[in-house]
């Protein structure tokens, strides 16, 4: 890399010097004395080649009630969390020569009854929200065993802007059996501040800094494991500003959250190829933060290939969490910290899902493979929230 940078700098210097002189003297620019080929300067940086294009459309149909929501039968009863979300996504994977890979993700959300659990009962500010995001990740192969990654993205939404950027590095040992990785990610959110009556009060922000390390290990010719630990530090306005809290005085007050949150997560994954042409995936995640929330998440997924071009999958996920220390469905008006957000309450959440996927080789000109997938998930919680998720994907490999 150093050699190429030096060569590039030398070529630019040599090329720029005569041009500058010629401009100063009013003469036609002379050709550079030293001419390096593109391959000498750019090395393996080559033409842009699209490897795959995938689209996915997902719909979320949500029902339930939460104490942070207004509009219940009385001022202190839970209100509706009804929402429908339509989410088209686009992914483009491309290579640029032999060393550079790009991945671009573009999710778009069309939300109706957005924030049904909040200010839409008193204002229609976000009853219908369209949001879009772009996330661009570039991976550069430093050598046969190491890669560096740069990621950047932004999210645009009516009352909300978010930017994030990150760096990552990975190194493979033992002929690729073991891969160590580290990532750093910074996100900055900037959004409107509302009160619980729908009044707008300028803007507020928060930042999120995440660092993580991971280890991926080939254990046997059919077993792959991954361990990951990460910490996220958030500062700023950590709520959405319009959540309300039922009070002991039988009315409602605003949510009051700390201005900082430190979140730790330890994740283990295992993929096991099964002799009958299937695969087993196990996932476990331990989470803890300084708001007092501890969560355990386990997931098991079984995949079975029915034919060379088709496989099916079934997944079950269990998530249990304690609530944050200051969660209350009837808070003291003088409480320093309080929230009634159902997402921060103690609960169990279950997901049951299934999918079928087709990978069809194409021999004629154009894409060399077609990927089709249809799936359904049912998400339900013990504190009155249910979501039906239908998803459909189409992908082309070139």
């Amino acid at each position, binding site marked *: 890399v150093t050699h190429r940078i030096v060569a590039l700098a030398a070529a630019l210097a040599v090329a720029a010097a005569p041009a500058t002189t010629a401009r100063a003297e009013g003469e036609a620019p002379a050709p550079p004395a030293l001419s390096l080929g593109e391959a000498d300067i750019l090395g393996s940086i080559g033409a842009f080649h699209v490897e795959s294009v995938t689209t996915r459309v997902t719909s979320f149909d949500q029902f339930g009630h939460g104490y942070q929501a207004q509009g219940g039968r009385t001022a202190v009863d839970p209100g509706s969390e009804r929402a429908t979300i339509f989410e088209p996504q686009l992914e483009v994977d491309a290579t640029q020569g032999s060393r550079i890979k790009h991945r671009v993700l573009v999710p778009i959300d069309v939300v109706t009854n957005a924030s049904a659990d909040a200010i839409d009962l008193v204002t229609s500010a976000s009853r219908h929200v369209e949001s879009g995001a772009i996330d661009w990740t570039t991976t550069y192969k430093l050598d046969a065993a190491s890669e560096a990654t740069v990621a950047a993205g932004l999210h645009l939404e009516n009352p909300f802007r978010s930017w994030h950027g990150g760096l990552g590095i990975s190194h493979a040992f033992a002929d690729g059996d073991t891969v160590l990785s580290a990532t750093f990610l910074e996100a900055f959110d900037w*959004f409107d501040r509302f009160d619980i009556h729908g009044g707008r009060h300028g803007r507020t922000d928060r930042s*999120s800094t995440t660092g993580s390390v991971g280890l991926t290990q080939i254990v046997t010719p059919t077993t792959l494991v991954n361990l990951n630990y990460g910490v996220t530090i958030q500062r700023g306005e950590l709520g959405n500003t319009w959540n309300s809290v039922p009070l002991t005085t039988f009315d409602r007050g605003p949510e009051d959250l700390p201005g900082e949150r430190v*979140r730790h997560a330890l994740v283990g994954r295992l993929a096991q190829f099964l002799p009958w042409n299937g695969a087993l995936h196990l996932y476990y995640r331990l989470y803890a933060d300084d708001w007092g929330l501890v969560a355990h998440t386990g997931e098991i997924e079984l995949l079975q290939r029915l034919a060379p071009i088709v496989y099916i999958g079934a997944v079950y996920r269990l998530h249990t969490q304690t609530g944050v220390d200051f969660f209350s469905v009837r808070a003291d008006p003088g409480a320093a910290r309080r929230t009634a957000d159902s997402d921060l309450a103690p609960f169990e959440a279950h997901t049951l899902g299934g999918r079928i996927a087709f990978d069809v080789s194409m021999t004629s000109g154009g894409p060399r493979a077609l990927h089709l997938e249809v799936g359904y998930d049912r998400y339900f919680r013990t504190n009155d929230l249910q979501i039906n998720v239908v998803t459909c994907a189409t992908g082309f490999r070139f």
Partner: protein
Amino acid sequence: VRARVAALLAFALVAGCATVPQNRRAHFADPMMSLTGEPLDAARRQKLYDTREGAAGGDGAPAGGGCGCQ
């Protein structure tokens, strides 16, 4: 918990001493063996859980960002 984590790490490191030859890794090329799944599917799942549960962040994904409900 710490002992279990240490044991798991030790297992992974010890396992790393026995290299699996390249020509015996064919199963890992099967899409069914992807540890994190297809990226768009993983993204939409992560977004669902991050915005509906209080336990986002820490494992390489941004906490916050997006819908503003973290």
